[in-house]
């Protein structure tokens, strides 16, 4: 049984840049423990000799010709910006990244 402690949940949430409210923490703690217990089943198989699959198709080294093409105009790139200043996306200062 995989138990998710409050401390571990907060650590993972911090890694994912998720701020969780207290009521969410309450609810998610139990649900995540259940989900992790279910997915931990993968550990039952001995697969030390098996290669991992990261991609279902056998394609390697897909190249395109390196030719310049028009890119998105600045106005369009910024069209959905929550906040902008000149040709920049604007964000609040401070805080760690």
């Amino acid at each position, binding site marked *: 049984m995989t138990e*998710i402690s409050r401390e*571990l*949940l907060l650590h*993972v*949430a911090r*890694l*994912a*840049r*998720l*701020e*969780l*409210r207290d009521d*969410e923490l309450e*609810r*998610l703690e139990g*649900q*995540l423990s*259940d*989900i*992790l217990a*279910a*997915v*931990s*089943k*993968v*550990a039952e*198989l001995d*697969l030390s000799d*098996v*290669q*991992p*699959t*990261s*991609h*279902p*198709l056998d*394609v390697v080294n*897909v190249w*395109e010709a390196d030719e310049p093409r028009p890119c*998105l105009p600045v106005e*369009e*790139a910024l*069209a*959905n*910006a*929550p*906040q902008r200043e000149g040709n920049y*996306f604007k*964000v*609040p*200062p*401070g*805080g*760690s*990244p």
Partner: protein
Amino acid sequence: MIDTLRLTAEGAKELLDAKEISGAELFAAYLEAIGERDPELHCYLHVCEDPGGEGIPIALKDVIGTKGIPTTAGSKILQGYVPVYDSTVAARCKAHGLRTLGKTNTDEFAMGSSTENSAYGPSRNPWDPSRVPGGSGGGSAAAVSAGLAPWALGSDTGGSIKQPSALCGNVGLRPTYGTVSRYGIVAFASSLDQVGPVAKNVRDCAYLYSIIAGRDPCDSTTVEVPEVVLPEDGDLKGLRVGVPRELNEHEAIELGVRAAVRLAIDLLAQLGADVGECSLPRSVDFGMPCYYLIAPAEASSNLARYDGVRFGYRSPNATDRLEMYTHTRDEGFGDEPKRRILVGTYALSAGYYDAYYGQAQKVRTVIAREHAQAFERFDVLVTPTSPTVAFELGGRTSDPLAMYASDLLTIPSCMAGLPGLNVPCGLSGGLPVGLQLIGPQFAENTLFHVGHALERAVGFDVVPERLR
């Protein structure tokens, strides 16, 4: 009078080509049907004005980026987002003259099996509005069944095209991984995501697939695709049909579903197919755990882009940059994306990576091999698409694992990158039952051929009884 409930895309094209109806009349007929039935069914998140032209209308799942048309992926975090470019599939539809009717409802970021995870409220099943249409592409499937679109595009990561098609009683194809471009699609789990068609019959489904399939320089995972052959009437002599025991006898499969699929398998034999049993011993029991590690892991990475900086929602409550990220993501994401981001981040984090994500990728190899072995003996595999018929709204929302089990039978072949076609095969308790045809990679034409023969033999009426 245009009967949108019965009109197929092929039928619409014939009427347009013969100038029996105009493009404007056809588009207006769908808008009228939407006005009449969508307030109850809530298939659409956005309805478009007629862009003009004489092409067939189409509905697009709201994870498909459309230039100048809002694209929310069913999430509050993308509320108000209007793409400045078309996804490749939207561009291909446009180039073919297809006209977008609107954007259809989906579970948030395509994460779910009922549309109940949509931030904009659930869609309802046209056969019984107290029930879900399936998900995540429930909006597209319900729209096609309710005559609110002749056909539609969906997207499928672990069953999001096939399962809603099964629950709504229409035809849905999850194509082979790599056959359809994902450029401009809201990404969920990139080693699994595929775009595919939803239609009233197999010929329409094949035709729409032929429009969207093919290599795209903007998506390096796409490959050249065999020419699509629209299925014609014929028998199934010489076709080898495998019935995987674990996917047909699983205890989660309802009796009515099992019975309808069994009858359909008998029909395949009557059509001349050689039917035999086979086994995929680890694909079902380990498919779910494997999927629910790999998909969340990739989702946690893909959803990192929703940070409030360049597009979409930004929390007004932040005083510094870190708070901008954390508040935006807390306020913008619903429960299911949060759960998956957390599971995925955990599975990828230092100290746990090998045990979870690394091990799941190895399980994926095992599942792919089991399927490859089955295809040494068989041309197609058949299973129920969904273990149950459409379930009641609210029936599985409080228990994430119960909801996850909806995709028990669609997940294994998705993990192996295989194409799967849902074909309606009967009713159970007045609700549609879907049969899943699985083929080897790039065997779409075989699936269309078998699916077409089967749908002719079954004679399923795709119009929901209460709307006839």
